């Protein structure tokens, strides 16, 4: 296996959790809700995903546990921000703080345990094609799933009536309400979808990336996913580009450390975070003319009856 091939495989693996989490958050934000608790939902998803897989011996059950954990966390968020009209920014922060504590509590009994990683696809003939075979036909199921999810979300948002209603709720909740749609119900489903994706993204880490659980293993990926949604201008297609770019930065800095380039390893480790800041600035600057963000993003909606 060539070095280039190995790097591309690693980039795809590093990008997948970012893409999964960002896709979920994109749908949540398109409905007008800013859930800053992605990091918290992801880390609980990682702990529960590992726990499920370790206890059952099945990666699929692990993934389902991660999804369930993400949905449960997102329901707390929905109850607070939609049910009780609490500030979304503060609630999202609370969700992350709670998630970090909960994952430590749940995961503490699994620290030091090991599982076998999710298997990679193997199609005789196709996977054996030199250079591109393993990249196209030799990934784990989550990589394909994440790309299918983005395509599905694009189709849902732009080609279905339900997607149009969801976008309407995010752009002008008063009008959507006046037309007779239940804004809060739409947003609740969007928040739950975001939670499911974040939980799965978190579960990906111990199930397909590293075969063990360490507290804090999401290492800010949830926050980077939030930045990716901004980077993508809330458009699903651009999420793929953004996620793979960030995955590339992550892997490049790891390799640069290995090559022993005379740069402090800490500076290389800081690269993904610095890149996020720089990208946010560039993207926001380019958009000073008009914002593409959902118009009602982050605002509280209380229906008057």
């Amino acid at each position: 296996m060539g070095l280039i091939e190995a790097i591309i495989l690693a980039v795809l693996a590093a990008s997948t959790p970012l893409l999964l989490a960002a896709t979920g958050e994109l749908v949540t934000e398109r409905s007008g809700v800013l859930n800053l608790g992605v990091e918290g939902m992801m880390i609980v998803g990682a702990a529960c995903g590992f726990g499920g897989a370790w206890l059952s011996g099945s990666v699929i059950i692990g993934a389902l546990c991660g999804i369930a954990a993400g949905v449960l966390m997102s329901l707390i968020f929905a109850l607070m921000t939609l049910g009780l009209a609490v500030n979304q920014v503060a609630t999202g922060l609370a969700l992350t703080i709670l998630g970090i504590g909960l994952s430590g509590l749940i995961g503490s009994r699994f620290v030091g345990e090991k599982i076998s990683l999710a298997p990679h696809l193997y199609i005789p003939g196709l996977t054996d094609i030199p250079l591109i075979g393993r990249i196209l036909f030799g990934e784990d199921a989550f990589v394909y799933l994440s790309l299918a999810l983005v395509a599905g979300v694009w189709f849902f948002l732009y080609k279905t009536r339900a997607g149009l209603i969801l976008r309407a709720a995010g752009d002008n909740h008063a009008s959507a309400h006046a037309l007779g749609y239940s804004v809060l119900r739409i947003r609740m489903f969007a928040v739950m979808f975001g939670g499911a994706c974040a939980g799965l993204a978190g579960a990906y880490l111990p199930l397909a990336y590293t075969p063990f659980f360490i507290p804090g293993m999401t290492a800010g990926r949830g926050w980077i996913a939030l930045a990716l949604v901004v980077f993508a201008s809330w458009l699903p297609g651009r999420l793929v580009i953004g996620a793979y770019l960030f995955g590339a930065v992550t892997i490049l800095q790891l390799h640069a450390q290995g090559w022993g380039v005379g740069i402090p390893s800490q500076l290389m480790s800081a690269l993904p975070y610095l890149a996020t800041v720089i990208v946010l600035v560039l993207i926001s600057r380019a958009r000073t003319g008009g914002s593409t963000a959902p118009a009602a993003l982050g605002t509280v909606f209380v229906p008057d009856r």
Partner: protein
Amino acid sequence: MQLVLEKRAERSNTIALISPLIAIGLTLVTMSILFAILGKNPISALGVYFIDPLTDSYSLQEIAVKATPLVMIAIGLSLCYLANAWNIGAEGQFLVGAVAGSWLAVKTQGTDAGPWVLPAMMLLAAIGGALYALIPAICKVRFGASEILTSLMLVYVADLLLDYLVRGPWRDPKGFNFPTTAEFDPVAAVPVLIEGGRLHLGGVIALVVVAAVAVLLGKTIKGFEIRVVGAAPRAARFGGFNSNQLILLTFAISGALAGLAGIIEVAGPVGHLQPGISPGYGFTAIIVAFLGRLNPVGILIAGLFLALTFIGGEQAQIAMKIPLDVTKVFQGILLFYVLACDSLILYRFKLIFASPKVSSGAH
């Protein structure tokens, strides 16, 4: 059955006063359930958490020591949040302040530098923290980049910067390769208040900060502007207040206070610069700010209360083998209840057991 919110004609002052207490009460009930799930006796667990630390002098001093950074950071954050500027990177500003101040301590190590060293370190720390906080603030007002995400990303960067310094250029040559600077000289250390005790000068500084910000908010035009910009942005625009300038100002103050807290922690209780100087003070301070209702005196009380949970959590781990993560869960749950109870100030909660006709716009 359906939960419906009804807007109150005006905000309820009674509830504004008691809502933190309701939140703490609900948190204690939830924690009891959690303790029971973990197989611990809830009553004795809560006793170890909240009562035992109050019964001996060492723990009481330790609570004040832990409350010092929490209160200082939270006071700064409250200014940001009042002005609707979301600084959530105080942890990073705390670390950069610690680094900036420690630079002088490391440079003057072993020289006969006078007692000016500590005040100069504090000044450097405040400047360092303020400059670091201004990065997201400038990105926000100049380019419109979300200050939430940029300030948080910079936490990871600050953490790595500190790590690099204590493993590289600033490492104690006699430190057996541990990632730490040498112990600071006495002129670079925050003095304790009572010989042999834990209480140090930082506690006094925190009280001064509380008083100063209370005056700023209550008695000055700037304080008034901060409150108006957050509470009524439209009115503030008509009033000609410059909200961008206030974002820069509140971020700078909050960064300076976090940085100052950082050097006080390093030059005080810790005594040298090393990784892991903060058990998440910058994040816990967000809870302190909200629990204290963004009010200086409230924050002082809230800071002492959350410091109690840190000490109680350590004691519960030793005495009852309760995992330390329970403290973080506790803090997260507390913030949820605080926010939920705050909603009661503006809304009445009503449960409706009714026919589908009443349910609003349901399909």
